[in-house]
């Protein structure tokens, strides 16, 4: 191999750079996200009423799609009321429905969004509720 030493050193540097994010993070404990749903608004409700618009598992994975759908229904079709599988009715609104219960944006939204490093632009326009100390 011509210039074998140089190639090997080059390769080593290359592999090192590419894998940098991995070994840079080794040993660093990342705090597991722990979103909180214990806002005063939710705690006020009786146990049986503490339910989200849809099942928790569904909301966990699909909330962003549901919000997009809600927006289209409200803005484009002038449909304002959402009836879920259980027949409960909700006004479709991030600011006036979701955040009325989940009044803890930092511990509810940001907790996971920061962990997975997504930056949804909801709060550029929508107004987050004022957070109270629990």
């Amino acid at each position, binding site marked *: 191999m011509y210039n074998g030493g140089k190639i090997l050193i080059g390769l080593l540097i290359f592999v090192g750079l590419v894998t940098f994010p991995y070994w840079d993070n080794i040993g660093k404990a990342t705090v597991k996200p722990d979103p909180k749903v214990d806002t005063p608004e939710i705690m006020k409700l009786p146990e049986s009423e503490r339910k989200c618009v*849809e099942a928790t598992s569904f909301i966990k994975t699909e909330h962003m799609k549901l919000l997009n*759908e809600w927006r289209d229904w409200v803005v*484009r079709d002038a*449909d304002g*009321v959402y009836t879920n*599988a259980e027949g409960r009715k909700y006004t479709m609104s991030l600011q006036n429905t979701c955040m009325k219960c989940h009044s803890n944006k930092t511990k509810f939204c940001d907790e996971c969004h920061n962990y997975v490093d997504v930056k949804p632009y909801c709060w550029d326009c929508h107004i987050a509720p004022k957070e109270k100390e629990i």
Partner: protein
Amino acid sequence: MSIKRREFLKLAGISTVLGFGGVSAVTGLRRTLEASEVMPNPEALVAKKWGMVVDMSKFKTEEDYQRCIDACNHVHNVPSIDNPKKEIKWIWEEHYENAFPGNEAPYLSEKIKELPFLVLCNHCTNPPCVRVCPTKATFKRKSDGIVMMDMHRCIGCRFCMAACPYGARSFNWEDPRPFIKKEQGNYPNPEFPTRTKGVVEKCTFCYERLAKGLKPACVEASKGALLFGDLEDPNSEVRQVLGSRYSFRRRPELGTQPNVYYIF
């Protein structure tokens, strides 16, 4: 085995017809939420075509105008920016020569010349802003004729501002939040979003209030100087007034068919 071009085209055609072509993620979502459904709020005010009548005879003092403008600005978190190049307007005052250009007769009474007219988006039946929008961020709602904005889609190209002959659209050159007026203990209005830098905004005929069964904020504040109702309903208040009094619209020669009428 290779597939002939002709066979490929046939297959593509058939699958498109059968609807295999455009299955989106959202269709999947709809299926998982089979039991859920959406509907308009039963209390919502509904109309085939919303329209407004501005009764200029009832605007006597500056306060009469300001009441309507302030009501709108507060409800929608409209910022007040002094620089006229950057200002945001939903409903505002305009002199006759600017509101109705081409109609300035040489001996027009001073009173009319100096009179400010209250102007806003005309929610045209044939809106040029909608025609030019490349993303369908602005669109004419089929159910009630409101020319709407979907802020999530607006890319800030400002074609609509160039197309609108009434100057009813404003662009956010910077983050509007610091410019929202501090109202009594309610700043900004927590029920309505603000806008962000880089989107175009305008009057929406208070679609969010109509959905709750309330008339637009300016109409409510006007003490009867602004009338609001269904232009397709011959028994509505607006149609009664239009049927009995002389009315005019802004720049009718353009064929945009404005739905905001003025009477004296």
